[in-house]
């Protein structure tokens, strides 16, 4: 079985500061990893994905994430956040052979303050 842990339920940060949202996963087989963002009253939007190849993945809106197999992590980073980045961020995993069903973490609420 696969699972995803997002330890931080809320992360407050000042505008233009860097941010890291943590994600750890567990799976007995190879995985595909994803970060989704959910703005208020909107659906989930794919930020970035790791399928294979380079462990550093760049996504939309200046976000990037690094796949670390030894630490089973896929932390999301942005060097300078904007007020518009305020949203809920979900890490998700699919194990190869898992029927393409996403398993989500509990989410991290990023609140950017002036």
């Amino acid at each position, binding site marked *: 079985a696969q699972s*995803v842990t*997002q330890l931080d*339920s809320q992360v407050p940060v000042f505008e233009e500061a860097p941010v890291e949202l943590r994600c750890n996963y567990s799976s007995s087989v190879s995985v*595909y990893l*994803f970060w*989704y963002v959910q703005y208020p*009253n*909107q*659906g*989930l*939007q*794919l930020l970035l*994905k790791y*399928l294979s190849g380079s462990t550093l993945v760049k996504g939309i809106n200046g976000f990037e994430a690094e796949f670390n197999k030894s630490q089973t992590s896929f932390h999301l980073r942005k060097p300078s956040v904007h007020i518009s980045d305020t949203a809920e961020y*979900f890490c*998700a995993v*699919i194990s190869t052979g898992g*029927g*393409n*069903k*996403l*398993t*989500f*973490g*509990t*989410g991290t609420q990023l609140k950017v303050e002036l």
Partner: protein
Amino acid sequence: GAGVSQSPSNKVTEKGKDVELRCDPISGHTALYWYRQRLGQGLEFLIYFQGNSAPDKSGLPSDRFSAERTGESVSTLTIQRTQQEDSAVYLCASRPLLTGAYGYTFGSGTRLTVV
């Protein structure tokens, strides 16, 4: 349409009543998923439709929950005899057959409140 459409966007119902939630996937998307998002929790997988294959119902929490989909069109999620713990946002997603997980497009969800 341009995206996955869900209706209604909000639904308040009395405990014990049945509710029906609707999902219109993107045209041509053969796979359709239902997820539930309860307050403070991650998204829980409920059910998965792939074309004309038998649906994967492994995530449905009880026999009060059921879903239908005819071909590659609209899907309805029905909750019978609703309970307060059914209060959640119900999200639908669709994807084309060959894109794998990165082809998911999510709808905006139906917020269900059971009072």
